[in-house]
């Protein structure tokens, strides 16, 4: 075992894939000389040079389109967004140019490309810099959407995303970059896209989470363990294609479901999971499905308001107890 941060895991994933495949390159704002706005690309310029680690101007629509075009031309770009909030400028190319071209061309023109960068609320950065885009991209046929929590998953899933022959939206989280995880030293560290992970096994209730919500789910599970509630936590890891089997198998065992996400509730990931469970495991449910999400408001700046706009451990624990008919 060795210790590694999520930031290093992402960098290692890119470096290893760039060593393996000369067509893989990284482009984005501040990725080269500055070593990444969040230092995720630390050391890559030094190893691979400016041909393969490309600083772009601040021009999301333009460089995303260039990335997709380079992919059409046979390369495998990794396009870094300084945050996914800025990818709104480029979402036309992600959806109309990247996601749809294989279909529109009758299978003739594949677009292997990774769009990656921090997603979701950070801390005290206000409404335009705090938003989860998971459900936006998960809505789109032709895209795969990945959002890891641990360093091992970040590395294994980013490697899988770079090797994937389709466009992949890879949603990271700024607040997780510095988190350190133990990572086993195995030869094959690819983690397949489309597979969830049972982070903690339990028998009373299923909690689904992804990215920064996973540690909150673990903390809440620790709290309710004192009440004798055994929580099964599923880290979705991939949002599209969603691993519905792992969710359904778990719910059939626990008979209860709570979904967690930082994104807004309306038409969110929780809504999708609830619909899947209701249509395929309705008879197994012993309680209504609950969703804990970000509140449907633009993110406020004030610390107290930001706090209540986001899912908190206490709220999660309360919800678990309510669903399991226990008082906390």
């Amino acid at each position, binding site marked *: 075992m060795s210790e590694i941060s999520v930031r290093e895991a992402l960098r290692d994933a890119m470096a290893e894939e760039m060593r393996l495949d000369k067509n893989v390159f990284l482009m984005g704002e501040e990725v080269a000389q500055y070593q990444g706005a969040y230092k995720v690309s630390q050391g890559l310029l030094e190893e691979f040079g400016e041909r393969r680690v490309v600083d772009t101007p601040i021009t999301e*629509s333009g*460089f995303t389109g260039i990335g997709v075009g380079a992919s*059409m031309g046979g390369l495998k770009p990794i396009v870094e967004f300084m945050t996914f909030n800025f990818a709104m400028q480029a979402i036309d190319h992600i959806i109309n140019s990247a996601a749809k071209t294989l279909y*529109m061309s009758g299978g003739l023109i594949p677009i292997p490309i990774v769009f990656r960068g921090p997603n979701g609320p950070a801390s005290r950065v206000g409404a335009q810099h705090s938003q989860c885009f998971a459900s936006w991209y998960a809505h789109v046929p032709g895209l795969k959407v990945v959002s890891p929590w641990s360093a091992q998953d970040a590395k294994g899933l980013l490697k899988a995303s770079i090797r994937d022959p389709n466009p992949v939206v890879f949603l990271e989280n700024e607040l997780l970059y510095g988190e350190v995880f133990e990572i086993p030293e195995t030869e094959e560290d690819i983690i397949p896209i489309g597979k969830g992970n049972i982070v903690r096994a339990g028998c009373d209730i299923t909690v689904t989470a992804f990215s920064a919500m996973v540690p909150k789910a673990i903390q809440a599970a620790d709290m309710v363990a004192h009440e004798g509630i055994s929580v099964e936590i599923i880290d979705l890891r991939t949002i599209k294609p969603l691993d519905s089997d792992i969710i359904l198998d778990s719910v059939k065992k626990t008979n209860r479901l709570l979904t967690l996400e930082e994104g807004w509730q309306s038409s969110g990931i929780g809504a999708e999971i609830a619909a899947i469970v209701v249509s395929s495991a309705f008879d197994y449910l012993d309680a209504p499905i609950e969703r804990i999400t970000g509140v449907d408001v633009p993110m406020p700046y004030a610390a107290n308001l930001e706090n209540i706009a986001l899912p908190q451990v206490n709220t999660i624990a309360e919800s678990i107890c309510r669903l399991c008919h226990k008082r906390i």
Partner: protein
Amino acid sequence: MPQKKNKKLQPIQKQLLPADISEETLHTFYREMLLIRRFEEKAGQLYGMGKIGGFCHLYIGQEAVITGVQSSLSDGDSVITGYRCHGHMLSAGASPKEVMAELTGKVAGVSQGKGGSMHMFVRGKFYGGHGIVGAQVPLGTGLAFANKYNGNDRVTVTFFGDGAANQGQVFEAFNMAALWKLPVIYVIENNQYAMGTALSRSTAIEELYRRGAAFGIDGQRVDGMDVLEVKRVTEAAVSKCRLGEGPILLELMTYRYRGHSMSDPAKYRSKEEVHKVRDERDPIENLKKLIVDSGYKTEEDLKKEDKSIRSMISEAAEFAQMSPEPDPSALTTDIYMDDRWVDRKNV
């Protein structure tokens, strides 16, 4: 950059051929442009009959642009454009049958009926066929980026219209293309109207060839109704690009005779205006005159040829109507490279 005055556009003069243009080349151009025109006329008919659905943007009047440009390219060079792409497909060597079958939404279409009039591709040569106005400009710049990355001497020609020229991402692409010296030639097909909006009503400075000046991109205005002029200028631009002197901007002055799409009656301009261009500047008629005057072919020869092209197009139309629709199972293929990913539960 050269501040060329707006050159007065004249029909091709009865003159001696340039030394490097053979009579055979003229003849090839004639056939290629006529093929596009007859194809588009037929597509218009089929649209009127309800055999083609949705949007259908015809290229009639603009044939010299793609014909002249394509003749300057070599194997490995690539082309990309917007939704007015039938002519570009034919010029890239796609068969009229398969292009027409795409328009009718049939399985034999170049995109198996899944793309339609606006989304067609020839792998390794023509990269679409894009429906979001201006989006093809960064995409084409990205194709050029890939060529530069690979260290080859291939060139990408990125076409867009006078309407797309006002999209912000065009300038974003210009900036990066100039910054990274990418081997891309931007060709603005200036047909004077962005859908129904005349250039003067949409564009502060109408000399679009100057649009690259802020980025140090040389621009040139060219008579896009004169296939020989298009060829001459494009060949020079391609040579420069191959030597690493790209990007380059060309504004090709052209005109579409039909509406923006089949549903546009084009009431924003007078019939006289259209007739005047047709009578004086038509790229095919003017070339025909030149061929006949040169004595290489008689009017009768060319008529015969027109007839054979018309019959080829009729066959294509017949094929496009007779070909079966895609199998319903095609609905959920080609979404991912590995179709195991496709969720068929809600199909």
